[in-house]
């Protein structure tokens, strides 16, 4: 079986068709009941990933040095798309995979070869720990210290809003190795094991009531220097490559999942109670979803061609947040959706809260609009325009 799949790897259309047929035949055994408990949720995702890695489908899109079958971002986007078309939710670890793996492959191929297969094969969950209490949208102001001392980097400080960080085996972090004033020039990327002495994590309860994120404290944490991703003080370049995928590939993954959610919403709503207001709102949400999908197709195509995706990924992020918010807004306001009180609508309430975060994380909507105004439209800004 796996050798057949390997032969498909280079033709995206063949891969899509074969995967679609296979998923159609196997989806009943692959779909897990929705787990409210986050550790169960992550465990389910790892099991699914492991199954699809063993079967060979997930190996497509990844280089052979990592146990993959070759291919690239278009194959991976197709994988996510087909999972959701078959009614299977994309495992949360795949979100980390897309942000972390391409940058690690590019900047630290040795670390990638050693550790990435465990992430890709569903053996471990990882998380991306960038934000700090005093560094959210203004990432270059981060303060977690990293002092290079012989063969170690000694880390002290705090990270926050790390998605599923409390359930992760390793954290991709950014630490300050330069002076406090060095901004983006003095930052280094590190892969830190969460079982290292001095790492303490505390789950953070999201507005939905789910322990979606965590904060992490680093107290004299000793990280081997070969866990550096890119060189010392090269962390900003690593972060920028990660952001290309975070804004580009994330939109591809998320739109696939939103397509599934929209179908579930149509199933959830009481059709007899639906009027033209809700119908028009669903139509509008559908258009926004197809728009972000079309945009993601273009951006993934550019990533696949090895092009640098710069400011043009910002519209994707804005369009994605808009589509996600539109879909969950329908869930909230549609007649008899049970959104406010019904037990059965718990998942829709959780999704609604999360949709409000989509215009905040990964560079807020305001950051994206500023990037478009500066880099694309080249408008004068408040300092230049004076």
């Amino acid at each position, binding site marked *: 079986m796996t050798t057949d799949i390997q032969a498909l790897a280079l033709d995206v259309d063949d891969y899509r068709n074969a995967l679609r047929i296979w998923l159609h035949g196997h989806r009943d055994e692959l779909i897990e009941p929705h787990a409210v408990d986050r550790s169960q949720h992550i465990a389910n995702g790892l099991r699914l990933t492991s199954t699809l890695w063993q079967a060979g489908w997930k190996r497509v899109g990844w280089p052979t040095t990592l146990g993959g079958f070759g291919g690239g971002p278009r194959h991976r986007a197709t994988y996510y798309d087909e999972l959701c078309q078959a009614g299977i939710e994309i495992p949360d670890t795949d979100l980390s995979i897309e942000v972390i793996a391409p940058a690690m492959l590019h900047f630290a191929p040795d670390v990638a070869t050693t550790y990435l297969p465990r992430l890709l094969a569903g053996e471990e969950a990882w998380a991306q720990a960038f934000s700090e209490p005093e560094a959210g949208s203004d990432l270059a102001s981060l303060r977690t210290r990293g002092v290079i001392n012989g063969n170690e980097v000694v880390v002290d400080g705090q990270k926050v809003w790390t998605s599923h960080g409390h359930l992760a085996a390793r954290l991709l972090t950014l630490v300050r190795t330069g002076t406090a004033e060095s901004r983006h020039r003095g930052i280094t990327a590190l892969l830190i094991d969460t079982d290292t002495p001095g790492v303490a994590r505390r789950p953070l309860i999201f507005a939905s009531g789910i322990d979606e994120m965590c904060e992490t404290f680093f107290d004299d944490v000793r990280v081997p220097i070969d866990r550096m991703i890119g060189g010392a003080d090269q962390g900003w370049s690593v972060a920028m490559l990660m952001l290309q995928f975070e804004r580009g590939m994330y939109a591809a993954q998320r739109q696939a999942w939103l397509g599934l959610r929209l179908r579930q919403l149509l199933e959830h709503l009481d059709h007899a109670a639906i009027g033209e207001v809700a119908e*028009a709102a669903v139509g509008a949400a559908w258009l926004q979803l197809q728009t972000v999908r*079309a945009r993601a197709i273009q951006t993934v195509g550019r990533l696949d061609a090895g092009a640098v995706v710069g400011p043009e990924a910002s519209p994707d992020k804005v369009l994605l947040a808009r589509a996600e918010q539109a879909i969950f807004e329908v869930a909230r306001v549609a007649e008899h959706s049970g959104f406010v009180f019904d037990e059965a609508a718990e998942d829709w309430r959780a999704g609604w809260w999360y949709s409000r975060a989509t215009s905040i994380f990964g560079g807020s909507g305001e950051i994206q609009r500023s990037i478009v105004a500066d880099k*694309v439209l080249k408008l004068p800004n408040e300092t230049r325009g004076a």
Partner: protein
Amino acid sequence: MMIDDEIATLVRNSLREALAGSPNDISEALAQFDWQELVYTDEGFAFTALFEEQGYLGADTDALDIAIATVLGLDGRAPVLWPLPAYTGAEDMGGSGVVMIEGVTLRDPLNAAKSILAPVAGRIQMVAVSSVEQVALGGMARGSTWVRGRVCGTPTTDLGPWCDVEWRARLALASELVGLAHRIIDLAADQVSVRRQFGRAIASNQAVRFRLAEAYVEMVGAQALIAAAWQDRLPAAAGWAKAAAGLAHDVVAKHAIQVCGAIGLSDEHPLPGLVRRGMALDALLGSALNQQLRIGKELFAQQRNTESSQEAACLAVGRF
């Protein structure tokens, strides 16, 4: 021939020159330029480039009729009678073979036409004209060459399914809306970058910057959906793309009108003309708001016809 970025730029520049040189009659320019050949090479690119450029220049031509004639393989051209949603379509006049059709033509006055192209019974048909009532179209089409009319005539040639014409026309209109939106953004960005108030460029205010950034996001979103619809070549996706382009033009227009201030609402400013043109294009072949409601109704209906959300009834646009 592959259309790479370099060729694409050359083509667009030539199209822009051709349209600027003869803003009211481009058939000759298109023939010289061999746009028809481009249609055979890459139909999506040929349509997208021509209609985005037409939109960007705010030109009022019958490029749409020429494009459709090309696709239908017609040598000469006959004006297409484009249906507006309020019109009823072709009506059989009591079994005599004569039909009555209402619609809009883009350039040629109807009463000069011996025959027209029109949708009759779900087909695109050549219709020999026997009588015409026509009136110049006003309202948001004021100043254009559009004519609204009622034609009685006899279908003579069946040229294929109407939907094959309709989806291409919708994508052409969508690209023209994108071109208009692009021009509007450029106009507004230039104006607010140059004009100063309170001692600084108007565009240096975040509220203004964000409006134009949102306008840009709308435009490129619609542009992407048009590209994906060409990839699919499915009538439904073309309808989505036109709706998205109509909505994008609307958002872009309103942001631009706001940031340009009073001058942007005076008739001497180019903005109102570009806004009117967009509204007229949006109305042709189904407006965005009507589309939105229709899509919503269809999605609910599709869901009722499938067993569960595991069956992906709602076909999404494009492929990765």
